[in-house]
């Protein structure tokens, strides 16, 4: 049921989206941030579908579902240019310590570059790699590893 609503929201916003290169300046100035950051985070997740995108093993290539999520994230972020955003990249525990840091960094950079490509001002975005230090899911089962290979878009303030 919830998913159905999200799809409607996504389709609705997709229809009004313009091509990145042809994007016109927003007519209406953005509303000042009067809402708390927690409320904004909730709205961001609800309207983007997810704050998280997932990757294949040892890969920082964006999958089609990841691109769709990031497109929705970009549309929302462009409506909130005052927000500072940090993209945190993660690796799974089967990666070695230092390569995990590198892969997490590459995932975060990949997400950042794609959001910029879609029109989010680069100045709004910072990146960080946690390597394999902050797993979302425990264990070494393939499903657990897959859920840890991720980049998370976090609204800082």
């Amino acid at each position, binding site marked *: 049921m919830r998913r159905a609503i999200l799809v409607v929201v996504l389709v609705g916003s997709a229809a009004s989206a313009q091509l990145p290169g042809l994007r016109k300046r927003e007519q209406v100035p953005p509303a000042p941030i009067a809402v708390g950051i927690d409320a904004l985070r909730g709205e961001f997740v609800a309207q983007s579908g997810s704050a998280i995108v997932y990757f294949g093993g040892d890969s920082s290539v964006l999958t089609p579902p990841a691109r769709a999520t990031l497109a929705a994230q970009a549309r929302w972020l462009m409506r909130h240019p005052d927000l500072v955003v940090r993209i945190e990249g993660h690796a799974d525990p*089967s990666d070695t*310590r*230092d390569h995990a*840091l590198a892969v997490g960094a*590459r995932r975060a950079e*990949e997400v950042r570059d794609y959001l910029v490509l879609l029109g989010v001002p680069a100045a709004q975005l910072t990146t960080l790699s946690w390597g394999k230090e902050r*797993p*979302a899911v*425990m264990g070494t089962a393939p499903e657990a590893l897959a859920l840890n290979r991720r980049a998370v878009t976090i609204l800082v303030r």
Partner: protein
Amino acid sequence: MIARPAFLLLGIACLFAPASAQERAAVIAIPPLTTPDEKDSGADSPRAIAWQASQLIASDLRTTAELVPVGPDQKDYYSYPEVTAPTFSRWRAKGAKFVLTGFVRSRPDGRLTVGCYVYDTLKGAEVGRTGFVVAPGDWRRAAHKCSGIAYSAATGAPGGFDTRIAYVAESGPANNRVKRIAVMDSDGNNQSFVTAGDTIVLTPRLSPKAETLAFVSFVESQAQVRIANLASGDQHPLIQNGGMSFAPRFSPDGKRIAFSMQAGANIDVYVADSNGGTPQRLTASPGVDTDPSFAPDGSRIAFESDRSGTQQLYVMNADGSGQRRISFGGGWYAAPVWSPDGEWIAFARRIPGAGARIGIMKPDGSGEKLLTDGSLDEGPSWAASGRELLFQRAGPDGRPALYKVTLAGGEARRVATPQDASDPDWSGALD
């Protein structure tokens, strides 16, 4: 593992040696160190310390694959003059190829003189000696030095008993670990913490004499190489600006540090003066180049790169020229570390479907050998002897611990730590 009662049966102790070690392991007799001092009372008297030192030497040598220590036994006390004139025939008769004698003597200034002598009982000749003046509280270091002399005399390789191990002590839930840099003597004594646990820290790397250590900290919100002075506790970043930096390792002379630094999606190997200064870039591939490790003569650097599509091992000259891939066995190779004798490069290898294991290969890529059979082994670090590796193994529950394995193979042995432990780094011999 040898049963303790075997040590009481001096004459036939060699029969109790494990079958695998019997061909190569030599018996060394450790009669208790003696003392010329008249005063013979109290827990910190020279005689009491001599007894404890003798036990520690035997315990050190018991951890080696090459020597089987027998003793100390109270029955085997000898006089001070006999330290340098042992009765070789007696030890020969008991099957000991070597005998270690020594003494502990108090000095007028309150310190102790500790002397150790190693003899070959077949040749009837001295093969090693060492002596120290130490504070009474430092007798353990002197005893480790005696162990080292015995090991060197018997094997020709440096002893690694007076060495330190830096590692990351871990506690707390798996998704929010508290990590602290810890340092201990290689026998597990003198545990101390270098960082407070308020921020994630990784990969401590000791300087050659274990005076400072380089490590990675998230203290300023992204991974950054920092340097800690172990005596003063002072800490500072290696470089002032730049992106994420990680994977530090000292050059053999301690003057430089090789490490990785990020610029956008590209990660390269750099080298900087260990006191700071502008880093010099050594690699320029568009992929991830990391985990640099110097050859013992400082002329070359082994590192890991995914420029071919997967993580593989490479060797280059210390100025970045002549980069050449050396690993071709399939799967992923990571974390190369050059052995102290320059003969080998240790690594972690991920094999699809078989997990991650520790292995060694020659610097030209030949002679590859896997030494462990764990599913998540990583982070190899060499013993000063070059005959053993310390590494990290994650258990089925994901909790890491430290293990040792010898180049000869065999079962990996757990190294006791007070907490879960990862990212070990074993120092060279200290002096």
